[in-house]
Every structure is written in structure tokens, then in C-alpha cells.
């Protein structure tokens, strides 16, 4: 489902909300580094470079506001990770949150996993809206009363109080990764999860913090022979024994944990042959996969490399079934992008709830959506200029050469500091969250 340029039954994307400071001067700590809806879409979590997690909750749809869905308001904010120092290696460990993954809700509380480069934490977010009043043995201020003074028996009564949302770390999974963690993924058994760094993938049990199983290890005996690293990993949404991991060489391996304890031998190997005509100094860099995501159905998976998004059928290993160019006009600029480090940007991608559309980010605060059925694509921009409530987003176009039409933007005018790396799609509705540096934009479809 996508926005069309207009007309017919196409729906259009509208601005809903934007969160974050308006300042031109962006503090590094405020840069959003991950965005994730929970399973119901009621909660939206963001992590930033300062190690903080902010959770937004959607307000209940009220009868008054017919034209828009519930808005997301801040629900909880907490400091998940702090900067640490590894004294043994003289290395500082960044507090930046690399990934947040929600656990399915099983009781009134919400649980999520947040990971920085080295440590994963399980957070419990719970509400407290009542407090006990009238203790028999305690004073109002909590001090124990003198037992001899107690002459009557009274039972505490629960009194309502202002809603308080508490976040507490329930588990800390530490010291299992030598390299930087790039992915975490909750398994469909809801008991285990995997965490992946550059060379290893570990399987954890959510209850056990002092042990993890190493299930993939691609570290060569001689590090000089290192040719590729793990860039992303994900558990299959339905088969708890299956997971995939992508590499810096543009390959994806699907592994079955039933086959062996150490899944160094893949069950399936996905790779598209390289097009020799497009070789350059930077071919290897741009083929490195920055994100891999299973479709909700579990039948497909999507990978993002620097210039394109590819959809793979799990039953076909030799090439993707669909390839979408995100910003092909950058291919001739790879050298400049290498110089300014943009070529190393790790874009993520996401599916919509029905797997009919995919979304990913680009530069100049542009993000792209591709409809898999109609094969149409659209480029939209997250900017404060388009921030009037329910303002319809106008499709953007990049001019690749020749005469620049009105409303088009030329490649050289693109702002490469405004990059959209993290996007998320509501699991059930057409609501999307787009992280633009330190701002979080929420867009939704126009309700007719």
C-alpha cells in the first residue's frame, strides 16, 4: 500500500507528528539510532546515541478526532546504557543503542531488549496507577511504628494515583561479544533470542544471563584471512529453528539449528552473481548488506545494500525475486561518498504489515517506498516544512541529469548529512515512523 501521486483509490501519506528538538544544532547524543514498533503497534520505541530509550504510546482513539488516528505520546524515558570503559583493551564502549526489539506481551507489563555494542539488557516497562494507603505497621512516611502503639487492625487500601511508568532492567546479558553487536532478534519461541556481532552469533535464553550458546563463528584461525563479517541476523518469524545472517560480501546464509550445535555450515546460501560491468573500486563496499528482514509471512526476506533493496524467496538461492533501486543516481558519486564516509552508512528496511510494500531511507531526509504488487515507488521527504497537521506529503524526485524540472532536486544539491537510516512500519496499520537525525516523524495514511 503506497501513496500515489493522486487519483483513484490510491491513498496518500500525511504528516501526523514530529518528535524532537527543532534546533539546528543537533547534539550527537540525541541522534536516533533505532526505531521499533511493538507487536500491537501501540508502543513505539526509539533509542539514541546517548544510550536513552524513549517509548511512545498511542492514545486511545477518541470519538472526537475522526480525521486522524491516535497520536503517539511519550510514555516512558529511561537511560538504558551508559558509556563504559574496557580497561583490558583500553577501549571505550559507546552507549549508543544499536537495536531495540520488543518481546510479545504476556502480561500487563511490556518487555524489550536493547543492545549497545557489547551488552544487551532486558527492560520491563510497567505501569503503576495505584498505591497502597493505610498500612497497619508503617507510618505515612514509611517508618515502622512502635508495635506497642498499634491498637487497632487496619488493612491497606489501594488508592488511585497519577500514572507512573517505571522501567527496570530485569536482565543484563553481558560479556559475550568481543566485537560490536549489530543485531538482536527474538525467536518465535519467545524464550530465546540471538545476538550477532561482526564475527559471531550467540543464542540466549531470556532467563539466563550467565551463559549463551555460540551458534555461528566465522572468525578465521588467522585474522589475516578475514574476508567478510556478519552484518545482520534475524530469527525466522515462525520457525524457531531457522535464522539468517547477512555478510559484508552481499551474501545471506540461512541456518537450521537442528542440524548442528554450531551452525557454521549453512542450509541455504543466497547470493546474486555480480554484474561485471559495474565493477569499480567500491563494488565490494556497496554490495555489503546493511539489513536483513524476514517478511511477516516468513516466505520472503529482504536485504538492503547501499544502492538497492532486494526481496528474496527463501526457496530460491541464486538470485532475488525483486530488486528495487533506492538511489541509483549515487552510483557515479561513489568516490565522493567514500571520502565523506557516507558509503558506510547502514540503511535499514522494513515491510508493511501485509508484506505488500517495503520502505527504506535515503539522503536529504528522503525515504522510499516500493509497492510489490503495482511495482510503483515513491519518494517522500521528512521535513519540518511539510509538518502541518494532516498535510499530504508530496512525492519528491531527484533529477539525475539534463534539465532539472521544477520541484526536482539535483543530485548535487542533496544534503548527505540528512540521512534516514531507521524507519519502522506499524504492524497492522499504515502508520510509519521515520527517524531523521534527532527527529522522529510519524506519518499515516489519509483517512477519507
Amino acid at each position, binding site marked *: 500500500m503506497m501513496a500515489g501521486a493522486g487519483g483513484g483509490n490510491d491513498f496518500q501519506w500525511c504528516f501526523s507528528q514530529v518528535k524532537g528538538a527543532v534546533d539546528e544544532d543537533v547534539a550527537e547524543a540525541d541522534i536516533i539510532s533505532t526505531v521499533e514498533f511493538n507487536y500491537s503497534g501501540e508502543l513505539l520505541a526509539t533509542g539514541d546515541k546517548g544510550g536513552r530509550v524513549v517509548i511512545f504510546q498511542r492514545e486511545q482513539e477518541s470519538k472526537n478526532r475522526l480525521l486522524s488516528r491516535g497520536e503517539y505520546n511519550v510514555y516512558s524515558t529511561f537511560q538504558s546504557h551508559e558509556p563504559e570503559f574496557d580497561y583490558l*583493551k583500553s577501549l571505550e564502549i559507546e552507549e549508543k543503542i544499536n537495536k531495540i526489539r520488543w518481546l510479545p506481551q504476556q502480561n500487563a507489563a511490556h518487555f524489550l531488549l536493547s543492545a549497545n555494542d557489547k551488552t544487551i539488557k532486558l527492560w520491563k516497562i510497567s505501569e503503576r496507577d495505584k498505591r497502597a494507603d493505610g498500612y497497619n505497621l508503617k507510618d505515612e512516611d514509611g517508618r515502622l511504628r512502635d508495635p506497642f502503639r498499634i491498637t487497632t487492625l487496619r488493612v491497606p487500601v489501594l488508592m488511585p494515583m497519577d500514572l507512573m511508568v517505571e522501567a527496570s532492567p530485569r536482565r543484563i546479558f553481558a560479556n559475550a561479544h568481543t566485537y560490536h553487536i549489530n543485531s538482536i532478534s527474538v525467536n518465535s519461541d519467545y524464550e530465546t533470542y540471538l545476538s550477532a556481532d*561482526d564475527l559471531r552469533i550467540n543464542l540466549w535464553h531470556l532467563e539466563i544471563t550467565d551463559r549463551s550458546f555460540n551458534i555461528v563463528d566465522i572468525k578465521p584461525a588467522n585474522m589475516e584471512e578475514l574476508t567478510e563479517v556478519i552484518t545482520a541476523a534475524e530469527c525466522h518469524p515462525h520457525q524457531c529453528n531457522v535464522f539468517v545472517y547477512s555478510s559484508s560480501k552481499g551474501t545471506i546464509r540461512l541456518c537450521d539449528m537442528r542440524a548442528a550445535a554450531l551452525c557454521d555450515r549453512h542450509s541455504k546460501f543466497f547470493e546474486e552473481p555480480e554484474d561485471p560491468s559495474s565493477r569499480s573500486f567500491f563494488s565490494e563496499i556497496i554490495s555489503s548488506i546493511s539489513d536483513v528482514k524476514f517478511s511477516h509471512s516468513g516466505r520472503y526476506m529482504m536485504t538492503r545494500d547501499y544502492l538497492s533493496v532486494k526481496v528474496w524467496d527463501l526457496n530460491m538461492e541464486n538470485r532475488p525475486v525483486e530488486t528495487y533501486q533506492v538511489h541509483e543516481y549515487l552510483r557515479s558519486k561513489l568516490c565522493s561518498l567514500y571520502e565523506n564516509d557516507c558509503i*558506510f552508512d547502514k540503511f535499514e528496511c522494513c515491510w508493511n504489515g501485509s508484506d505488500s510494500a517495503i520502505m527504506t531511507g535515503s539522503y536529504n531526509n528522503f525515504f522510499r517506498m516500493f509497492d510489490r504488487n503495482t511495482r510503483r515507488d515513491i519518494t517522500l521527504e521528512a521535513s519540518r516544512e511539510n509538518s502541518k497537521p494532516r498535510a499530504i506529503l508530496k512525492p519528491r524526485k531527484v533529477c539525475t541529469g539534463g534539465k532539472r524540472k521544477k520541484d526536482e532536486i539535483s543530485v548535487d544539491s542533496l544534503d548527505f548529512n540528512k540521512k534516514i537510516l531507521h524507519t519502522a512500519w506499524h504492524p497492522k496499520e499504515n502508520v510509519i515512523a521515520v527517524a531523521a537525525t534527532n527527529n522522529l516523524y510519524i506519518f499515516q495514511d489519509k483517512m477519507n
Partner: protein
Amino acid sequence: MEYKVEAHRIMSISLGKIYNSRVQRGGIKLHKNLLVSLVLRSARQVYLSEYYSGACLNAQNEREGNEWDITDSEREKFPPSATECDRVESTEEPQQSEQSEKGRDYRENDDEVKSDQADSTSTLQQEQNQNSSLDSVAKVSSETPPETSNEPKESPSDSAVAESDSTPEANGESHQPPKTQRKRSAEESESGDSPQKRTKVASSNAEESEEAEEMDTSNVSNLITIFGSSFSGLLSKDGAKPEAEDSGQICCDQMLKNLNPWSTAIVAF
């Protein structure tokens, strides 16, 4: 020629990135450094192939047949032109004079280069008789093993020098330098920022008398050769490779005495 300049520029940028990565917060990023080293290696291959294309055309002037076997993929990518090769030749001239100012070690290395290469590159020498400067430059720049065979006397820890891949490859792709050398050299050989494109930390050969700022393309090539194909040097600060640090430490100490302040600053981390 443009390819050579471009390749050289990319090499400088890559080395700058690798250097910067060490001082970045959060430690060395393995993935990014791996990608940078791959780019470095590609650029080096192109850069070095330019030498051989120059030498080859020079040889072709004299005799038929092309002994130089630049790989087909390299040829397809970057076919050398006659004018390019001429320019390559002419740039060798000033470098020759630079080289003559080099220290004893360097010249000794040169001699060793020639002697080591005697049997395996006899064809080479026959072809390049008329241009001895190009000869030595080409050999020094492209044949890592002979050069690194010098290094053991400065670094006793790296004794396994001339491995089996000291056989120079006529195709100009010396992509198999001795692995042990790379560990140490990679650590000490870092380059400055791109504005000083010609600034390179001296390799072990030329540290005696060479100014770091003095650009010697052959040294750059040595540097890249040692550094580019392998990844180990990048990990010296990473806990994953503690063994590299030990050998690196010894060598670094020795090198530090000889390097000028600029190089020292780079090596010091």
C-alpha cells in the same frame, strides 16, 4: 594516468580512514576497516598495474610479445594507453634522483632486490635494460618480498620473511606479501591526511634518511602492499589480536628512533 592518480588518491584517503578509526570513540570498527582495506587493495592493484603497463609498453617498443601479464580483469577495467605509459616513465625520472638520495639501507635493499630477483626476473631485466631506474623502481614497488627481506634485521621478531610467495609475479600484482611482515609494518605504517597526499610514514626500508613528507611512490606501494592485502595490522588495538601487538611493540620501538616527528606522531598510538 588518471587511473593512477585516482588510485593513488583513494589509497591516501583509505589510509587516512584507517588511521582515524583508531582514535574514534568506541574502538575499531571491524566491518568498516575491512571494507576500507578492500578498497585499498583494489586501488593498489590498479596503481601498481600502471607501473607495469608503463614498463610493458616500454618493452614493447623493443620487442614483440608481452611478458607482462596484467590480469584480464585489470586490463578491462583500466586499459593502459600509450600516453599514460609515457607519463609514467617520465615521472620515474625525478623519482630516480630522489632515490639516489636515499640512505644506505634503501640502496642495499635495491641491490638485494636485484640479486634476489636474479633468477626469477631475468626476463624482466632483459626487457628493461634500457631503463634501469624504472627497473629498480618497479621492482621495489611491486615486489614486496625482497624488500621485506630486509626487515628482519630491524625486527628480529619477524623472521619468517621470504615465504614461498617471494616469487615475484610478472603480472604486477604482488598480492601475496609475507603475512608476518604485514603485522608489524601495518602498525607502524600509517599515512597522514589526504591534504598531505605525498606524506607517508616511511616504511622500514627508507626510514634512515628519508623524510616522511618526501613522497616516494614506490614506498607508498610498499606500504600498501604490506598493508593492503591483509587485515591483521588493523587489529593490533583490538583484543582479538594480541599477538600482533607484541611483535609490533618491539618493531615500533626500533622504528620510533628513526622516524621523524611526523611519522612518530602517527605511530605513537
